């Protein structure tokens, strides 16, 4: 067997540097990252990257920042496996490698000019933040914006400062809820589905953008359909464990779709008859 260097490969990595790192919760850590080439990641909201650390492997991580922020990008990493465990020990100044961005993000050109209802549950806020911040940075291009946020307990809430700002803005309707309260919590308690009936929306021109754990999708989508939002205007982002990112390895397959190439963003119309999607 001969071995030669390969200049062209889907597995080439881009060296990058962590410029900011801070723990967010017991399990999640925030990273701001710059590519060493100085180039922008140039992603679309909703896309993901493969984070690579030689010796630890690579793993798919959603990009959490809006592409309107050009010079760096944000990742939020849950300590869940080998690569993410190593990542949690890294801090500002440390090096990682990046492949991507990969996948089909949110269809921003289609969303423009329409009303948006964001529904984020748990870690769903991480990928959805890339679109929410994109919309806020280009606020004029969109209609009414509603953001509904849900998490297990107040201490699980990610991006608390930013979320507070969303709550204060006049151009955004914001509401949030926790499954389980604590003594300091003054907001809603209950499942995120309980917030949907109260939203005043024009179903014909509203896109529902839903990101959360699998169990949340079924119930939230049902509520959105009850509000007469058409299936093609309901967008979801599905979690799968991509190993290659380029539509080959088979790990992220959802029926006939490769989540890494055909997704992770799908319309409900595209997946409603897919037996493996939700």
């Amino acid at each position, binding site marked *: 067997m001969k071995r030669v260097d390969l200049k062209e490969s889907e597995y080439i990595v881009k060296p990058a540097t962590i410029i900011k790192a801070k723990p967010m919760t017991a399990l999640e850590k925030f990273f701001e990252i710059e590519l060493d080439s100085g180039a922008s990641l140039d992603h679309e909201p909703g896309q993901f990257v493969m984070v690579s650390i030689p010796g630890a492997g690579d793993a798919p991580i959603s990009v959490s920042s809006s592409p309107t922020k050009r010079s760096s990008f944000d990742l939020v990493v849950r300590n869940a496996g080998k690569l993410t465990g190593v990542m949690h020990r890294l801090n500002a100044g440390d090096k990682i490698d990046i492949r991507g961005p990969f996948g089909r993000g949110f269809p921003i050109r289609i969303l423009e000019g329409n009303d948006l209802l964001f529904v984020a549950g748990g870690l769903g806020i991480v990928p959805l933040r890339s679109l929410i911040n994109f919309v806020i940075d280009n606020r004029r291009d969109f209609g009414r914006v509603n953001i509904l946020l849900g998490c297990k307990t107040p201490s699980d809430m990610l991006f608390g400062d930013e979320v507070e700002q969303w709550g204060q803005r006049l151009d955004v309707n914001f509401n949030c809820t926790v499954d389980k309260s604590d003594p300091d919590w003054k907001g809603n308690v209950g499942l995120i589905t309980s917030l949907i009936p109260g939203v005043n929306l024009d179903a014909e021109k509203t896109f529902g953008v839903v990101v959360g754990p699998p169990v949340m999708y079924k119930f939230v989508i049902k509520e959105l359909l009850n509000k007469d939002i058409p299936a093609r205007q309901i967008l979801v982002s599905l979690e799968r464990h991509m190993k290659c990112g380029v539509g080959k*390895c088979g790990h992220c397959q959802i029926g006939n779709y490769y989540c890494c190439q055909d997704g992770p963003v799908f319309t409900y119309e595209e997946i409603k008859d897919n037996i493996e999607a939700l």
Partner: protein
Amino acid sequence: MKQFKILEKKDFPQFIKRLSKKHKVVAPVSRGNKSYAFTQVDSSDQIAMKYIPTILPPKKYFMPQRETLAQYNKSKKTFQTVLEFEELVIFGVHTCDLAGIQCLNIVFSDTPKDINYIARKNRILIIGLECNDYCDEYASCKVMDSHHPNGGYDLFFTELKESFIVHVNTLEGEGIIELTGLFKEATSNHLKEREGVIAAKKKIFKDEVDVHYKDLKPMFDKSAGSKVWEDLEKRCLSCGNCTNVCPTCYCFDIIDEINLDLDTGYRIRQWDSCQNEDFAKVAGGESFREERGQRQRHRYMRKFSYPVERYARHFCTGCGRCSRTCMAKINLKETINALAKENR
């Protein structure tokens, strides 16, 4: 006519000798117990000219079980992508396996292209060998239309009484004809004899299952809630043998290995199996095909439905390997017939 050449059987030993002097040649070799494996040869005595599908398909040369994608050095901060390859002639590839290689070619050539696969494939010459009769009762190559060649080779051998008639399909194949210097032009008698073989095959090869080729996908598409998967759920041991031996299964895992110096190492890819329990597991803990029945259904859908939509091609070649190797005796022909029965 000039695309057909003749190699007398008496010259076959010389053919393998001359070919293996210049190239690394692999061919089916008996391993006992009705088992065969593609193995390096330098003499025709080693080759099993009549063989049932090898334990592993020729996939192992195109997509090795283990392959280095990159090598890294942490202290020097280098990460170099690499290609591993071997110049090779594969002799004696049956038409089912030609079809299998064609399926892999499609997947890895589809964008984003897999350069490692393509570069390796381009260094392998393929000499096909016609099956004039069934290998055994597990084969279902007729219904999958892979009992005869649909391209995919450089040279293709069909056995006649005294000779092999050889179809030259590529310039590289012509190169082998010239290199070995043993081939004659085919005469009209040879061509007539070949037609006789093909006509005889039409009488031998009949649809092996109760479903027609074009009805397979619609049948599988309706099968989501079928009792057949419940039956497989009870029998399957999740060992992954069926996917390992399948000529069109290409799922893989990518892992990093580090040397004892804790500084240098390799990023490798190795075969993986959708039959493994954690194959579709995600960080949040959900596994999207937790049940064995779901995983078996997925395997079948990846042969008879999904690739038909994506590539207009079935990813089953009817080679029968999955059925031959299954410890729980899960049989592809029986599964198809059971689904067909449910549908009636």
